[in-house]
């Protein structure tokens, strides 16, 4: 990594530049993502019900719960990917670094530069490994050849992929294995130095070896990034996350440290789920 720390709130979210709060002044204990009374509707059906909780900085927070419980929907609220879906209505507030992200003057494009995302199905562009990352950098105005070269290398190293692809940087990304493609997507996400990386079941389509590589990578990445991960794999949540949120039917049932959730949950539903009695 060329930079030791993730950049702070350098880009103001709102387009007519408001006086951005100096983040350094805020107490360290301030959570990075604050979610309050968040409800989300797809047309008439409600997918999220009054979700309220805080996600801390530079830790891994896992969302678990049975299919259809709203965890992916919630994840997609943090980079406003739900904007792309017709008929979605959001109530409540989501603040990232103290700024309300659903405010009218917030530019979703700028938000997504600070909140990266890795998808369930790896989605490298049908370009070369190099171009996949260079495309992301070009979007952010980084065009100088030497700078792009060095960021391509550092982000591929950061995604533990450099040694495997360094001789084939200009080969099509689609020719690599599923696990390599997913790590390329992670490299692409970290290349633009976001503060937060959202991961939507990043390893669910991968074999156990590729999965363990991704998990090692996540543990390494949390030194620099705040990671929010949706997973169906309970062991995975237990292995890699610091905090775990359990969702059921659009409600946040329980949110606590991962060890508490998996060893001594407060709610019966949580216990039933993590012990595999339902879901």
């Amino acid at each position, binding site marked *: 990594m060329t930079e030791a720390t993730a950049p702070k709130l350098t880009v103001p979210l709102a387009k007519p530049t408001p006086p951005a709060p100096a983040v350094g002044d805020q107490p360290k204990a301030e959570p990075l993502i604050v979610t309050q009374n968040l409800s989300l509707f797809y047309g008439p059906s409600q997918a999220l019900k009054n979700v309220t909780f805080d996600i801390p900085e530079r830790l891994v927070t896992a969302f678990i719960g049975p299919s259809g419980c709203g965890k992916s929907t919630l994840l997609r609220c943090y980079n406003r990917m739900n904007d792309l879906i017709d008929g979605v209505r959001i109530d409540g507030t989501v603040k990232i670094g103290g700024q309300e992200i659903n405010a009218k003057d917030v530019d979703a494009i700028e938000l997504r530069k600070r909140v990266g995302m890795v998808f369930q199905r790896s*989605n490298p562009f049908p370009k070369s490994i190099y171009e996949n990352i260079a495309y992301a950098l070009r979007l952010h105005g980084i065009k100088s050849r030497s700078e792009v070269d060095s960021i391509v290398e550092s982000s591929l190293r950061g995604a533990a992929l450099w040694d495997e692809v360094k001789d084939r940087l200009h080969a099509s990304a689609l020719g690599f294995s599923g696990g390599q493609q997913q790590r390329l997507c992670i490299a692409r996400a970290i290349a633009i130095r976001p503060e937060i990386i959202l991961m939507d079941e990043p390893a669910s389509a991968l074999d156990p070896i590729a999965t363990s590589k991704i998990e090692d990578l996540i543990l390494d990445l949390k030194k620099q990034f705040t990671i929010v991960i949706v997973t169906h794999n309970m062991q995975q949540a237990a292995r890699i996350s610091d905090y775990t949120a359990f969702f059921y039917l659009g409600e946040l049932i329980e949110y606590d440290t991962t060890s508490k959730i998996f060893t001594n949950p407060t709610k019966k539903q949580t216990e039933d789920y993590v012990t595999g009695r339902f879901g």
Partner: protein
Amino acid sequence: MSAVATAPAPPSLPRPGAPKTSFHKKQFRFSSFFFTGLTGLATLLILAFLVIIFGNILMLGWQGFSWRFITAGTEADMFDVNKAGVFPMIVGTTARVILMTIFVIPVGVITAIYLTEYAHATSRFTRIIRSAVNNLAGVPSIVFGLFGLGFFISFVGANLDAALRPSNAEPLWGKPALIWASLTLAVMTLPVVIVATEESLKAIPLGLREGSLALGATKLQTIIQIVLPQALPGILTGGILAVSRAAGEVAPILFTGAAYYMATLPHALTDQFMDLGYHVFILSTQSPNVERTRPILYATVLVLLLLTLALNIVAILIRARMRRKMRMLH
């Protein structure tokens, strides 16, 4: 889980009520046989027609076909097999098809992008546009010809003349011309390009678009840099279909640009042109001696088929090259 894995396998009992017939008794099913035969026959019929038509044209057309025939004009006598030539028609047809492609691809592609990427799929407006596109595809080509005459020539052209050269009584734009014929054909083939582009855009996985947007790309950046390059072969397929359809059409150009006879080749967009398809019509209806003209008629049809084939091959080669480029990258 482990309890299930170590449990002894249940003894295999005969299922109650299972029929005890043997599989090795293949039955003759008439309906199956009949429909296999019917579908095969239908396919054969198509093939037979194709062979008959092409064979007939090739055999009879070959007699009048010669190097002189495709490089000479019709100055001497367009109905005499030893003097007639179709070079001006080859030029005219090629020019109108290429011009049409230049007009139709951008408009069609942009419309398709709007319909698939921007418009709300279920909105009333989108549905109206979509049904308009489908209806456009069903309009008879002679209607396009009349539309071209009424709109492009009498309205657009006449107004251009009035605005640009009011002192000149002789119309320049307000008469049949290469540009109006090409535009009329472009309107006619628009649905083909729109539908082909839409299909290729829809085939691109949502994940690619999301991947780009999640990196902070705008919708426009995503469409231009990620979506369109992927859709290019499909767009070209639309172009190929449009070229195939337009090359042989006569009705749309009848009133909008095709000429019975021209002493010179067209050298401006406002010139009229001679056209292969229209020439076939002329040869078959205007000849003083039908028997003597027949070899030229067949040869002209053959040239039209070959030209359509050639235009298609060029488009297919471009598409293949693009696909190869996309696979190899840099």
